[in-house]
């Protein structure tokens, strides 16, 4: 005869507790933390480089890289940006504990903005809270306009969505309305920026929104 003990606890509650600790550290440092998620090849690295390039004279920025393929660290190094490589051990996602372990390698108190580049994957990273302020999802035109329908969890959890490689839209037959409808159903009112890292189109809107968010965080800290 078995006894049934009710539990009703989130399976990843251990992760969420550590995420809460990260959140506290980001708050104390008064910085804005971003978790950047996308498919492999969606443009995480390009968006980071272009964003850092544009904002590095206004804000102190740090980058944590959890992607298996090390991004062009040299380029960030040349810009004088503190960069930390998170050892994911080939994992499919970053979790709060990996980020927590890497926090001492970055001078948090000096930063206004911390960008965490997640592992290239549209499924797994969405389940793991890292303790950041904003989950940034980058979709890209060549991946197809059906991605919100195929990977709903990722789009549901986004705070801001960039649609990259807009310069290819006319060649790919990418239907922006169809894409946006899927996103709106999953995540009503999510911030949306169509951009092209290649041409720079759309970046002004993304950057001015991000500036605003960093300033709000600065004042809060």
């Amino acid at each position, binding site marked *: 005869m078995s*006894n049934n003990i009710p539990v009703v*606890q989130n399976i990843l509650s251990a992760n969420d507790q550590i995420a809460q600790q990260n959140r506290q550290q980001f708050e104390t440092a008064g910085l804005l933390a971003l978790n950047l998620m996308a498919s492999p090849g969606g443009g995480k690295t390009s968006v980071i480089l272009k964003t850092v390039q544009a904002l590095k004279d206004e804000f102190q920025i740090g980058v944590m890289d959890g992607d298996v393929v090390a991004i062009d660290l040299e380029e960030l190094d040349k810009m004088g940006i503190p960069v930390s490589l998170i050892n994911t051990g080939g994992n499919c996602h970053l*979790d709060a504990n990996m980020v927590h372990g890497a926090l001492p390698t970055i001078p948090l108190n000096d930063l206004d903005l911390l960008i965490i580049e997640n592992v290239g994957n549209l499924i797994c990273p969405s389940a793991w809270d890292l303790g950041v302020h904003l989950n940034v999802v980058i979709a890209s035109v060549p991946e197809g306009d059906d991605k919100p329908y195929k990977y709903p969890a990722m789009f549901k959890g986004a705070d801001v969505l960039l649609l990259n490689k807009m310069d290819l839209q006319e060649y790919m037959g990418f239907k922006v309305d169809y894409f946006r409808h899927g996103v709106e159903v999953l995540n009503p009112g999510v911030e949306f920026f169509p951009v092209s890292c290649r041409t720079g189109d759309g970046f002004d809107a993304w950057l001015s929104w991000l500036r605003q968010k960093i300033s709000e965080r600065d004042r809060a800290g």
Partner: protein
Amino acid sequence: MHELAVTQSLLQIALHHAKENGATRIKELNLVIGQLSSIVDDSIQFYWDMTAKGTIAEGAILNFRRIPATLRCNDCAHEFPMDQRDFICPACGSKRVGVAGGEEFFLESIDVDLASEKQET
């Protein structure tokens, strides 16, 4: 593949609740997994068997209650399964729909032997 991390988290939660209730053995874990939550494959049992080895949960069975992802129409209140092509209400054709279910991801309960029962047998 993050089944290992999931089983480690599960074990921690199950052992905690077992200890609090004075259980001597964990026999089953009842999980509720929504389609929109983290993908948890049935192969998780394999990882569980490795992770739980040497604990009071060794050999425990994982039971899954899977919750399909559903949408609800904001115009006619019809609820329907989320498919992977369009998010449009099949009853009235409205595009004003929202997510109604499928995000569940929790350990609902555990089935255990209690200390007192062990003494009886």
